């Protein structure tokens, strides 16, 4: 019986393929795309201020609300943070990835890859709250800077508008540090993978043709690492856009998109506005992915 079924399927590969793909496609279609569609639809409803009930009728009122100053500030703040985190992670990942791909021996490479990945083994929440302790006014960073006599520098940084705050653990600066830390592995791995695929002979050819190491980096290494950087940026950028834990733990009262979504769909009960907020990172990422595809980022994933 079973063998007859196998034979029947063997000569009908399309049906076999359909059976194989049905469960994951059903999941993606119903659960993922379904909720996405419902989300977008929700963003075109609006909340009746009087009754506090959602009016299920097509309107752009919620988007008008989204484009008020208070809300665009949230979007701008989140996007700037995401961009800053992405750039910082790229700057940190390039030399590390270059070392991993070019110089590290097999043992060193395994050890470093493990070191990059290991933080992902522990809970992200735990790591974020550890940063709260590290960056606290009584924490190890303040202590170390005080011992080095650099407390004025720290105070100076914290007194800056926008990025500063009462302490590192309650400031945009602290949020930035924690973000850079938690998303770094997602940047290092694709960058190292992209650099690993650059043939050594290409770099030698560049030197052979008269390019100094800095020129080789600019004209050969960096362009060839670009797909990896773009792939890593997909992660660091989108993860920062949607996160509410890090700014919740380390930020001040200024909200990020993730926090706004959390607040509006929860206590405020304004699901349409929460949905509209969610559409912002989706639209941004869609635009970014289009650009990234042109840069060949998907070949480096």
């Amino acid at each position, binding site marked *: 019986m079973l063998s007859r079924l196998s034979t029947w399927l063997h000569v009908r590969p399309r049906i076999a393929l359909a059976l194989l793909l049905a469960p994951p496609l059903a999941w993606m279609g119903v659960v993922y795309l379904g909720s996405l569609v419902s989300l977008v639809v929700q963003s075109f409803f609006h909340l009746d201020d009087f009754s506090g009930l959602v009016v299920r009728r097509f309107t752009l009122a919620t988007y008008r609300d989204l484009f008020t100053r208070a809300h665009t500030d949230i979007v701008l703040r989140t996007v700037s943070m995401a961009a800053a985190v992405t750039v910082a992670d790229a700057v940190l990942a390039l030399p590390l990835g270059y070392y991993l791909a070019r110089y590290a021996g097999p043992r060193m490479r395994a050890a470093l890859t493990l070191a990059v990945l290991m933080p992902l083994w522990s809970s992200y929440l735990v790591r974020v709250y550890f940063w709260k302790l590290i960056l606290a006014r009584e924490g190890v960073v303040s202590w170390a800077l005080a011992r080095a006599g650099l407390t004025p520098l720290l105070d100076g940084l914290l007194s800056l508008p926008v990025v500063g705050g009462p302490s590192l653990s309650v400031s945009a600066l602290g949020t930035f540090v924690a973000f850079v830390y938690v998303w770094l592995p997602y940047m290092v791995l694709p960058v190292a993978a992209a650099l690993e695929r650059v*043939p050594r*002979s*290409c770099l*030698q*050819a*560049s*030197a*052979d*043709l*008269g*390019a*100094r190491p800095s*020129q080789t980096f600019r*004209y*050969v290494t960096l*362009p*060839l690492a670009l797909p990896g950087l773009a792939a890593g940026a997909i992660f660091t950028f989108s993860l920062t856009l949607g996160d509410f834990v890090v700014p919740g733990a380390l930020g001040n009262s200024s909200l990020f998109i993730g926090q706004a979504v959390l607040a509006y769909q929860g206590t405020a009960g304004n699901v349409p506005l929460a949905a509209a907020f969610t559409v912002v990172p989706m639209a941004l990422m869609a635009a970014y992915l289009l650009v990234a595809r042109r840069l060949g980022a998907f070949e480096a994933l």
Partner: protein
Amino acid sequence: MTFAVRLRGVTRRFGAVTALRDVSLDVADGEYFSLLGPSGSGKTTCLRLIAGFDRPDEGTIELHGTNATGVPPYERDVNTVFQDYALFPHMTVAGNVGYGLRIRGVTRAERERRVEEALDLVRLPGVGARRPSELSGGQRQRVALARALVNRPRVLLLDEPLGALDLKLRQQMQIELTALQERLGITFLHVTHDQEEALALSDRLAVFREGRLEQVGTPAEVYERPATAFVADFVGVSNLLDGPAAEALTGSARAFTIRPEKIRMLPEAAAAAPGQCSVTGRIRDVVYLGMHTRYVVEVAEGALLTVVEQNRETTSVDVHGHRGRGVRLAWDPAHNHVLGA
């Protein structure tokens, strides 16, 4: 006289392995010079040292009379054609060929002109806008050549440049390389493991073995008067006779070599012409190669001699019928080459 390339006592070690051992070598200006040897013999290491990708542990390297031992590759007046071509995948063909000029700050108009000129030189005009990935292996090879030549180097280094090409293309490129070298008049330094290629292309060649130089000479010298048994065997096919077998033929036990094409195969009963070396034996093996046939003949004292005969009259059926037959081998003793003489 200043030499294009001059190595003095160059040694390079990788951990416990000595890749090059006390190599001294002079390459004249405008010479087509080949570095020949089996894989792992040190020829590529030698080329990398001359290009500047690596530094010797001992010894010096001179380029055109100036010491270049510690000079980085980007300050050497040499250019390399890499074994894997090493074309930049993110640039067009024109971008690749013009790279060296761009680095040197040559103006765009001048660059475009010279790139076009270089592509013409390697007979690949009009492909400037394409990507390397859109080209065939043979075309990539030509682009790599153009990219090196466009800088007008005084020495061109070629690292197994024809290794990845099929036989027909390889033979065609060999002809083009020699023509190119004669036209440009610059020094070509060509690494290869293919002895036919080295013989066909070179003005002179150096034979490497296990990091040492075995012999340096013109193709005729290396082929006809191999300095060692290794060279005799590696460059072409050679019969090495020593001990009693040698003594029976020449009256001296000193080892000598005789090339297979110099030996004539006669019927066993036939008499050799006077003054010829002659020996009888039995055909052990027949390898039909189309144009010619290779016979392995077992002679007295158990020695095996390889003999090559043109298939002028014979067919494959004929030659396979020769297996097991008794024959007389005869050759002019002038072709005997006593090793180390």
